[in-house]
């Protein structure tokens, strides 16, 4: 019995086709960067069109499992794909200067971005632990390479090496969890696991619970939840600026997308157990991320720790289980756009392939580049959760879900951390607008060159943050409205 619905894997196929086309064209024609840009744009357009088709199929009551149960076409998978596609387009624009600067290795760099996107998309659509793992590796390996692709900076090499080693470690933990889940339930397919747990009363579930915990830990690494976050600051700091936003956002979206399927479908029966576990990880992430972000003197490290805190907020909402899915999607979509926007501004300041960006470089940015400073300030304000931005609505959703789920203490911890977080978010804003640039060295008011691709990314992410912050309706009920 073969049930292959190509539509359910169409966006990934389009992206992989694009990646192969970029590589093959490069082999035969050695074209200028522009040609790679067109091929990439065509691949993104085709992927976007397939997501629209998927959405229509869902609206017509279609969807469901295909490829022998390895993939599912449900609203969550389709919506996550759309988020990842937006992240990929913005990330590519942001990284374009860096990629074009790779010279002959450009085709490889571009295809890695495309394949990484396809991998994380697959991760969000997989409902078989084997498939989740393979998709995770496709995305992760591409990101490891991208972190060190510039090669001329030791910081980049270090970032790639650290990311690779800790990522491989996390993958090993994940696959061990999958093996234990299989040993306990006799299935790797999440729906089969769900059926097994519903049909049988498991007398001693230790193996299954340990497997589930290891799966969560493995994904915790990918989404930089504390205490599995230690790689993030070093990698964000050392990797080439252009690609960090994509790297951070795509890994986070992919990780949460898979985690939602694993826990909400496969282990729904054990929600009592994993909710408590997630609540502890969430509290740790929120508190540690916020406290450590306060002490940073590098914007990228600060953003990495703030990412840890945001992973904590997302996990806070996840404790409520399936009802939180809508809010999770909203948070993931808006936070990843904010993140890419913030790193677009960082790219403008530290150069397309640069590593590190200390707070001092941001002094007086308001005069050197009004657009970059304004957008960076807006994303900082949004990340801190100020009303009229998407950050507020996302956080509110997460807290509301957790409160309804009975985790009042977690909400209080989250609120306290949010207040403390104002300090470091606003410190950057103050630095950009109310502190003069460095006295020694170059002209403090020299305008900062802003490539047109980065300008688009900045404006788009600002628009998303404001529009959906004021009028969240279209995005908020997306999953339930299909």
């Amino acid at each position, binding site marked *: 019995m073969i049930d292959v619905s190509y539509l359910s894997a169409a966006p990934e196929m389009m992206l992989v086709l694009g990646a192969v086309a970029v590589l093959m064209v490069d082999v035969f024609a050695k074209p200028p960067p522009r040609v790679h840009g067109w091929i990439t744009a065509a691949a993104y357009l085709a992927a976007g069109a397939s997501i629209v088709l998927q959405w229509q199929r869902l609206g017509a009551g279609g969807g469901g499992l295909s*490829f022998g149960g390895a993939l599912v076409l449900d609203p969550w998978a389709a919506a996550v794909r759309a988020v990842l596609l937006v992240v990929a387009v913005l990330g590519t624009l942001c990284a374009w200067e860096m990629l074009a600067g790779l010279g*002959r290795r450009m085709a*490889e760099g571009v295809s890695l971005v495309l394949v990484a996107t*396809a991998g994380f998309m697959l991760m969000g659509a997989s409902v078989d632990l084997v498939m989740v793992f393979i998709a995770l590796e496709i995305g992760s390996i591409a990101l490891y390479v991208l972190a060190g692709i510039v090669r001329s900076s030791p910081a980049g090499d270090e970032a790639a090496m650290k990311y690779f080693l800790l990522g491989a470690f996390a993958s090993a933990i994940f696959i061990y969890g999958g093996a234990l889940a299989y040993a306990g339930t006799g299935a790797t397919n999440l729906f089969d696991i769900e059926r097994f747990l519903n049909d049988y009363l498991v007398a001693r579930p230790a193996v299954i619970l340990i497997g589930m915990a290891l799966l969560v830990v493995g994904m915790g690494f990918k989404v930089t939840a504390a205490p599995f976050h230690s790689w993030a600051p070093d990698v964000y700091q050392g990797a080439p600026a252009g690609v960090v936003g994509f790297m951070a956002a795509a890994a986070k979206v992919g990780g949460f997308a898979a985690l939602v399927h694993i826990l909400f479908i496969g282990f729904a029966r054990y929600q009592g157990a994993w909710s408590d576990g997630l609540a502890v990880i969430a509290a740790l992430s929120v508190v540690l991320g916020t406290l450590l972000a306060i002490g940073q003197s590098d914007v990228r490290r600060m953003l990495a720790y703030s990412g840890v805190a945001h992973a904590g907020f997302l996990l806070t909402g996840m404790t409520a289980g399936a009802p939180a899915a809508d809010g999770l999607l909203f948070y993931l979509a808006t936070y990843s756009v904010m993140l890419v926007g913030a790193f677009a501004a960082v790219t403008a300041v530290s150069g397309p392939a640069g590593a590190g960006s200390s707070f001092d470089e941001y002094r007086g940015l308001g005069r050197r580049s009004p657009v970059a400073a304004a957008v960076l300030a807006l994303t900082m304000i949004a990340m801190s959760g100020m009303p009229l931005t998407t950050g507020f609505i996302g956080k509110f959703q997460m807290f509301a879900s957790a409160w309804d789920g009975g985790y009042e203490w977690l909400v209080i911890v989250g609120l306290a951390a949010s207040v403390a977080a104002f300090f470091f978010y606003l410190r950057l804003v103050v630095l950009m607008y109310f502190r003069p640039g460095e006295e020694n060295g170059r002209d403090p008011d020299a305008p900062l060159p802003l490539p047109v691709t980065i300008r688009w990314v900045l404006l788009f992410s600002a628009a998303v943050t404001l529009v959906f912050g004021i009028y969240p309706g279209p995005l908020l009920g997306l999953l339930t409205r299909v």
Partner: protein
Amino acid sequence: MVELIIFVLMGAVALGGAVAVVKARNPVYGAMGLMAALFALAVFYVVHLAHFVAAVQVIVYAGAVITLFLFVIMFVGVDRAERLTEKLAVQRPAALAVLAGVLALAGVLVITGQFDWVITVGEGAEVRGTVEEIGANLISVEEGGVQRASRWLLPFEATSLLLIVAAVGAVSLAFYRPRRKEEPDDETAGADRPGRPS
């Protein structure tokens, strides 16, 4: 009984091979030890009636992969001495302590009869998922080969994508040439691309 004898013999070979991989000073001996361990593993597959996987194991791992290892070892040079002194002072004692702890825990579990973590279903139902069952389910092509192929079709295809990513990544990292002055990357070597795989 025959199975037990085969298991003990091949288990010894596998363990010996694995120890040789770690202990051998000459990397060629290490590769040979790995081959012995992989071959012993193939015999285990036969015992579990997974003949196809056993054949693949011998052809791919004991054959191709080990040949590749040997090729690389010969290529790099066998005579290069390795530094074997440990730099981290606490590592060995810590490892010994962990080993002792694991052994002690295992001993306690076996002695007190607590070693029953295998899942039981319902009350008095029989034990699920013996090693044999798991192996047959996961890897044997016997019975229903077509259906299994469709079930693992996508993971199989996606694995090829994984290999492409790894190859592309390795190429893009390895083809970097340190830039001289302001020239763009890699342009220093002239018009020909060195050894680009096609």
